[in-house]
């Protein structure tokens, strides 16, 4: 497992840091958004931000699938879980995500609901086969990274006529969210808050490839660099972004070429096209409704759609009015600028989207970076 050390190799990291410092212009600032929660987590976990020049600012984007899942959808799943004979299967970090009134899958499980943590939707299928008398509902969430496995599970369930399996589909799309963020960034009057470039998703891009970002980079004239999740990946991607900004380029570049191709993974893309169709509109926690930004099961698999099999209607849940997640997800505020941060809103009592999962901007700042707050203030 040499991959861990090679991509965290300190001497190379230090060279990249020095190079970034050398190429940063002191006459301007640079605001780069890392779209993915995985990158937010990695930046904090490896302590990368400390080592960047002061005029490079990282903005934490909305790419944490647990964070942006609306509370109403979580409530709907919990409501269903409380019915007899229902088993809800979910990924680990969704278990703690809060619905309304602090409810969560973990809490529902403690109250007797049959909710199981799984690593793969195929585990949910196996549970369905093992318990033919129960209804197994896979609570599917995630960006394009986790979408193909859901597609595969749906295809297998249909093929093998596994009737007691269904999918509560909450898959969302990266390019749609990226377009939304950049559109809003462009409309800002203040130059101080614009985004100068984007660290593009790693695993998502391994599935969809670089191509979907091409028109985004072009239309918004913003450089995008697809980056892996390791220390060297992120540093190299920042250097590439810096060079694009300094030379007024706005291209899509691929730092993570050991995993990402231009065209993406054909089988995964085909499976997604087969299993899903675009939803007209979908609610993103902290952002609001975005059109064409999420997937539902396609007509071909509509009998496997939990939303058609059960009453899963989502009742809108209003965020705390003091919550600044909307501003934070758009890069206009820092977590520590929110009045709720660290007070009413903490990782064990999250109120807003950014505190919900470890990958959220507020949770990452709380867990890894809050020791700096007093010094800065």
């Amino acid at each position, binding site marked *: 497992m040499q991959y861990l050390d090679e991509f965290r190799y*300190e001497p190379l990291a230090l060279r990249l840091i020095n190079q970034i410092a050398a190429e940063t212009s002191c006459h301007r600032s640079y605001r780069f958004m890392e779209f993915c929660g995985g990158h937010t987590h990695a930046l904090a976990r490896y*302590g990368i931000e400390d080592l960047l020049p002061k005029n490079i600012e990282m903005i934490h984007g909305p790419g944490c699938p647990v964070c942006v899942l609306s509370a109403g959808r979580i409530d709907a799943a919990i409501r269903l879980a409380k019915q007899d004979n229902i088993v809800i299967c979910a990924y680990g970090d969704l278990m703690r995500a809060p619905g309304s009134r602090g409810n969560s899958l973990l809490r529902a499980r403690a109250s007797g609901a049959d909710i199981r943590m799984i690593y793969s939707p195929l585990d949910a299928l196996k549970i369905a086969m093992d318990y033919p008398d129960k209804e197994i509902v896979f609570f599917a969430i995630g960006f394009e990274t986790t979408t193909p496995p859901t597609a595969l599970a749906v295809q297998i369930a249909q093929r093998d006529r596994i009737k007691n399996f269904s999918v509560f589909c909450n898959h969302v799309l990266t390019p749609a969210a990226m377009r939304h963020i950049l559109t809003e960034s462009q409309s800002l009057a203040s130059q101080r808050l614009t985004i100068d470039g984007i660290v593009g998703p790693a695993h998502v891009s391994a599935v969809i490839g670089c191509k979907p970002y091409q028109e985004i980079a072009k239309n918004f004239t913003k450089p995008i660099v697809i980056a892996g999740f390791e220390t060297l990946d992120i540093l190299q991607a920042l250097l590439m972004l810096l060079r694009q900004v300094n030379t007024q380029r706005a291209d899509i570049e691929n730092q993570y070429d050991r995993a990402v191709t231009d065209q993406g993974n054909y089988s995964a893309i085909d499976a997604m096209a087969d299993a899903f169709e675009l939803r007209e509109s979908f609610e993103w926690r902290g952002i609001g409704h975005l059109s064409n930004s999420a997937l539902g099961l396609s007509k071909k698999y509509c009998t496997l759609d939990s939303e058609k099999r059960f009453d899963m209607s989502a009742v809108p849940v209003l965020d705390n009015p003091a919550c600044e997640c909307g501003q934070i997800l758009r890069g206009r505020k820092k977590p520590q600028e929110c009045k709720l941060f660290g007070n009413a809103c903490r990782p064990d009592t999250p109120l807003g989207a950014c505190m919900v999962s470890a990958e959220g901007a507020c949770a990452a700042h709380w867990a890894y970076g809050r020791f700096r707050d007093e010094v800065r203030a």
Partner: protein
Amino acid sequence: MSNTHRRSKIDLIDGVVELSHGAGGSAMATLISEIFYPAFNNDLLLQQNDQAIFNVDAGRLAFATDSFIVSPLFFPGGNIGSLAVNGTINDIALGGATPLYLSASFILEEGLPLKNLLTIAKTMGTCAHSAGVKIITGDTKVVERGKADGVFITTTGIGVIRNQIVLSANQIAPGDCVILSGEIADHGVAILSKRENLNFETNIISDQAALHELIQLILEVGEDNIRVMRDPTRGGLASALNELAEKSDIGFVINENKIPINHSVAAACEFLGLDPLYVANEGKLIVVVAPAAAADVLGAMRSHSLGRQAEIIGVATEDSRFFVQMVTRIGGRRIIDHLSGELLPRIC
């Protein structure tokens, strides 16, 4: 375990725990005499009284109790029995005491194969024997199928403190060194590797071990310079350091580069989405020691088989917010926070 009636032998090959094994009658007496007496075999237990009576040296005693639940019951490197004995031995030893006696209480689930119970009991006997400790009293209860997870064990232990050294978190002062006895996260990953829903191929084995010899060695070398010791079990190294920081009103700065971790364990944590700093250990030791004695203590630890990979991983610092900070491999800084809720894997 006071019943002396011997009945026909029980089926230790195909038999299972039945409700009658906890009913106080002859079935229970047979279970105890066939499984626990031979496994724990010592003079005090075999007196078969409702209590064990023993003399101790005059002086201070250390007393600790712990309950053990683990799934699966058997894992690479040990089983619930070895955890139950070594865990309580360690709790006693961490106070500077020499562990002497243990009690063992069992909650058995109806249907548990008797051969599994026998293996667990034998392991406990072996662990106790090799640590020079006797299991001298105990209890057995049986619950209906589905009301427990095979077997739950509670052990309570007693030990004598034969020195004048006081170990306590509130003695930690800024500048003190933090020594870690070896590689982290082995136990938690070994357990996860055998969970029904994961089951990945690995050679990782639990680090579970009795630490009392290593602890005595450290106290002999470090004497009054040893401030406190902890075994970073549930919640891992991160939780143990946070607990120490809060109890002593100081902070810690530790170096990521210095934290020993096995390559396979690091890789497993990476693909499971877990941070090894929060993953459980069962045979590791954190020693906080005055800087003057740190080198000697480190040398002594490395001379012991359970401390070969010991490292000075950081220092105590003045910090009004009691943060545990880490200097990352590339020289950045971050907090190592309290674990919030249970450890959950990340999805991507």
